C-alpha cells in the first residue's frame, strides 16, 4: 500500500498483472486471498489508501478488474448488499466504522442486508415507523422491516429507523448498523405467489444497537439512505462472476458457494421478465405461429421488446457521447412491465391449457406456468409502475408534483393503522 503509484493506466495494469503472477493461487483459501487483496489495495483500488484502496479513479479501478478477469483471478466479494454498505460507510461512516467493517466486506466474511422497507412504507420509504429509542448508550429497536433480500444470511443490517416523531417525515430518521445475530431480531422467509421465497421479513423486539453504530448524525438517516439507494441503482453484473466459477481450483469451489447464496433469490427473474426469447419457439411447437390472430399478438410483443431494446441503446449511446439524458433513459422500467404483461398473455394463448401445468410432465419443466405467476412482480418490485409514472411525469415531462399530505410533525401524519401503534 505504501508503494510508489505508477502513472498511466497501462503502467498500473501491467503492474497488477505482474503482482497477480506473483501472488495468485487458485488453490488458496478464499478469505486469505481476499485479505491479501484488501491489504494490497488492488481489490478496491478506487477506495482511499487508508481503507484498503489506492485512491485511484473508478475508471482505472475498472481496468484493474478487467486484468483480474483476464488473468482468471478472483477479486474481492461484491455480491448482495455488501457493496452498498461499503459505499455508504465510505461516504458517511467515521474512521472507526470504516476500519471495523470495510475489510470483512471485501473478504466476504460478513454478509449484509438492507433494512429499509416496511409493511406500512413501501412506495413511501421515508414513512418508516420502526422506532429507535436512545436508552443510555444504546438504541432500542422495535418494529418490522420487509423485502429484505438475504437477511437470513446476514451478519449486519443497514437500518433506517425513526428517532424523532416530532420532526417532519424525512427529518426524524436515523441510519444504523445493526448486528443481526441478537435475540431481539427475528428473520422470517416470505413466500411468494410463485412458490419462491426471495425475501424476508425482519422483526425487532427490543433489539439493541450501541450508540457508536449510528451512521452520520441522528435525524440525518434519510440523506445517508439516499447514498445507499443511489448505489443500489447501479446494479451489479453477476454474469462475470458466474462465469468464473467454472474454473478449477479450491478457491472457486468456495466462490461458487458464495455466489449460490447471492443468486438464489433471483432464479425466477428471467420468468418474471416474460421470457420473450421463448415465444417463437413455443409458437412453432404448438402451431400458434400459423394462427393469424395469435400472430398479431406475437408481433405486438416483438415490436414492443425490439423497440424497448433500441430505446435502451439510444439512451446508452447518448450517455456514452456525453449528451444530456433524454426521456428515453427513464422509461426502461415501465417498458419492462408492459413487455412482461404482454408476454404472459402471449404465452398463455400459445400454450393454452398446457400453460397451467407445473409438474414433471409439463412443457419445458413448467416454465410457462412460472412465467404466468411471476410476471405480476415486474410492475411492483423496485418501484411500482405508479411511482415510475409519477417520476416520468414530474422529472422528465416537468408536470406538477403530487400535492403533499405528509408535512409537519410525523406524529400527526395519517398512516396505516397497523403501523400507527409504534408511534405511541
Amino acid at each position, binding site marked *: 500500500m505504501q508503494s510508489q503509484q505508477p502513472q498511466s493506466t497501462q503502467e498500473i495494469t501491467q503492474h497488477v498483472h505482474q503482482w497477480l503472477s506473483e501472488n495468485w493461487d487458485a488453490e488458496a483459501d478464499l478469505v486469505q486471498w481476499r485479505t491479501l487483496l484488501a491489504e494490497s489495495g488492488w481489490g478496491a483500488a478506487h477506495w482511499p489508501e487508508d481503507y484498503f484502496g489506492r485512491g485511484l479513479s473508478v475508471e482505472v479501478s475498472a481496468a484493474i478488474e478487467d486484468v483480474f478477469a483476464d488473468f482468471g483471478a478472483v477479486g474481492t466479494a461484491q455480491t448482495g448488499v455488501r457493496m452498498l454498505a461499503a459505499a455508504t460507510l465510505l461516504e458517511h461512516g467515521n474512521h472507526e466504522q470504516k476500519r471495523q467493517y470495510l475489510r470483512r466486506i471485501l473478504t466476504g466474511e460478513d454478509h449484509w442486508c438492507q433494512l429499509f422497507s416496511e409493511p406500512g412504507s*413501501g*412506495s413511501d420509504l421515508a414513512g418508516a415507523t420502526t422506532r429507535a429509542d436512545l436508552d443510555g448508550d444504546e438504541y432500542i429497536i422495535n418494529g418490522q422491516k420487509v423485502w429484505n433480500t438475504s437477511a437470513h444470511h446476514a451478519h449486519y443490517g443497514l437500518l433506517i429507523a425513526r428517532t424523532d416523531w416530532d420532526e417532519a417525515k424525512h427529518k426524524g430518521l436515523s441510519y444504523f448498523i445493526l448486528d443481526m445475530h441478537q435475540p431481539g431480531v427475528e428473520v422470517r422467509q416470505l413466500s411468494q*405467489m410463485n412458490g419462491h421465497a426471495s425475501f424476508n421479513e425482519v422483526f425487532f423486539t427490543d433489539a439493541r444497537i450501541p450508540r457508536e453504530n449510528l451512521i452520520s448524525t441522528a435525524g440525518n438517516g434519510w440523506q445517508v439512505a439516499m447514498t445507499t439507494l443511489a448505489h443500489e441503482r447501479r446494479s451489479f453484473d453477476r454474469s462475470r462472476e458466474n462465469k468464473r466459477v467454472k474454473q478449477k481450483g479450491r478457491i472457486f469451489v468456495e466462490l461458487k458457494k458464495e455466489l449460490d447464496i447471492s443468486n438464489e433469490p433471483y432464479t425466477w427473474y428471467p420468468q418474471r421478465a416474460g421470457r420473450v426469447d421463448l415465444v417463437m419457439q413455443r409458437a412453432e411447437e404448438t402451431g400458434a405461429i400459423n394462427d393469424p390472430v395469435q400472430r398479431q399478438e406475437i408481433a405486438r410483443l416483438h415490436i414492443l421488446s425490439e423497440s424497448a431494446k433500441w430505446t435502451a441503446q439510444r439512451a446508452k449511446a447518448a450517455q456514452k457521447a456525453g449528451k444530456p439524458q433524454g426521456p428515453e433513459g427513464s422509461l426502461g422500467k415501465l417498458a419492462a412491465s408492459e413487455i412482461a404483461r404482454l408476454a404472459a398473455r402471449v404465452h398463455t394463448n400459445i400454450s393454452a*391449457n398446457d400453460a397451467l401445468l407445473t409438474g414433471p410432465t409439463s412443457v419445458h419443466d413448467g416454465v410457462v406456468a412460472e412465467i*404466468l405467476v411471476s410476471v405480476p412482480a415486474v410492475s411492483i*418490485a423496485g418501484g411500482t409502475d405508479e411511482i415510475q409514472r409519477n417520476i416520468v411525469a414530474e422529472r422528465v415531462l416537468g408536470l406538477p408534483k403530487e400535492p403533499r399530505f405528509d408535512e409537519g410533525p410525523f406524529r400527526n401524519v395519517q398512516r396505516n393503522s397497523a403501523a400507527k401503534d409504534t408511534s405511541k
Partner: protein
Amino acid sequence: MAFIFTEDQEQFRDSVSRFLKDKSSTVDVRRLMATAQGFDSMVWQQLSQQLGMTGVHMPEELGGAGFGPVEMAIVCEEMGKSLYCGPYFASAVCAANALRIAGDELQQETLLPEIISGEKIACLAVTEDRGIWTDEVFSTAATFSSTATRTDNGHLLNGRKRFVVDACNADTLIVVANDDQDFGFFVVDAAAQGVSITALDSMDPTRKLADVEFTDSPAQRLNNSKPEQLRLLVDIASTALANEMVGGAQTLLDSALSYTQLRFQFGRSIASFQAIKHRLADLLLELELAKSAAYQAAQTLADNALWSTNDQTADIDKVTEHASLAKAAASEVYLHAALECIQMHGGIGFTWENDTHLWFKRAKSSEVFLGSPAEHRERMLTALCAQSTDLRNSA
C-alpha cells in the same frame, strides 16, 4: 332473469352466499387446495342435500329443484366469489347436463338422481392432446381420437382425455368418443377396468385436473347422443363459467377497493390517488358489463328450452352467441381484476400469504378452460353471422 332477479332468486342467492361464506373461507380454500382430493366431502354433502345446489336446475322428478340455468348460474357466481373448491362445475354443471341432454329417459332415471343428490360425483371428458377447445371441438364436425367400439355387452372405450376437471374425484365419467356413427357420449365407471386417471400439477390448485386413459374400458352409450349436443354443452359450461368468473372478479374488485382505502402512503390513502380511482372505476365498468353478459347468457339458455336440442323454437345460435360472448367478456375482466388487485396491493399482493393469488390463479385457469377469449369471440361471431343469415333467409 329478464334483467332483474326475482325475489326468490335473490333469496336463493343469499342462502348460497351465507353457506359459502361459512364453509368456503380462504382458510378452507387454502386447506383444501393443498390436498389431492381438493374438496370437503361434508360440505359437499350439505350443499347437495341440505341446500339442493347440485340439483337446483334439474327436474323435480329426478330429485332436483326444478329451476333452470339462471339458478345454476347464481350458484356458480357465488362459488366464484368464495372460490369454492369442489366438483360442482364438473358434476352438477357439466356431467349432469350431459346426461340430461344425451341420456334417454331410463338412463336419466338410473344415473341422474345420485348425481343430483351429490352421492355420486361425475365429470365430463372432452378434450384431447393439448386440451384445446378449438373450432373443431366447438363444432358438430369434431372428430376425436378416442373411440368406442360396439360389442355384445355395450361398448369398449379406448383413448386419452386431457385436462379433465375433477376426474380424480369422479365416480362416473361422461366421455365424448367416436363410435360407428359419428361421435357420442359414453358413461364409464371410474372404477372400471382399463381406466387410468393421472392427476396433473396445475398452477391453480383450486381446480383439480387429470389426464384419463381408457384401455378397453366398458362404456355405456347415452342413447340420445347427437354430435350437436356437444356444442350445447359447451354453451352451458361457458355460461356457468362466465358466471363463476364474474363472481371471482367481484371479490377481487372488493378486495382492491377495501385495501386501497386502508392503505396509507404519503399521508393519504392510496385510493385517493386519481390513478387508482380511475382504474377502479374502469374495472367496475368492465365488470358490470361482463356481469350483464353472464346473466343474459343464463337467461338466453333458460329462454331457449335448452334441455332439448329437438325443440324447433330454440334459437341455438343465440344461445351460442350469448354463451361465448359472456365467456370472452368474463375471462378478460377476471384476469384484469386479478392483475389490478395484485398491483394495488403492491409487494404484499405478490406474497403467498395474501389471498389475491388464489383468485389470480383461478382467473388464469378459467381463461384457458373451455377455450381462450379469442376463440370464444370467433365462436360468438360465427353464431351471430348464422343468425343474420337466417334473418335474411326468412325475410
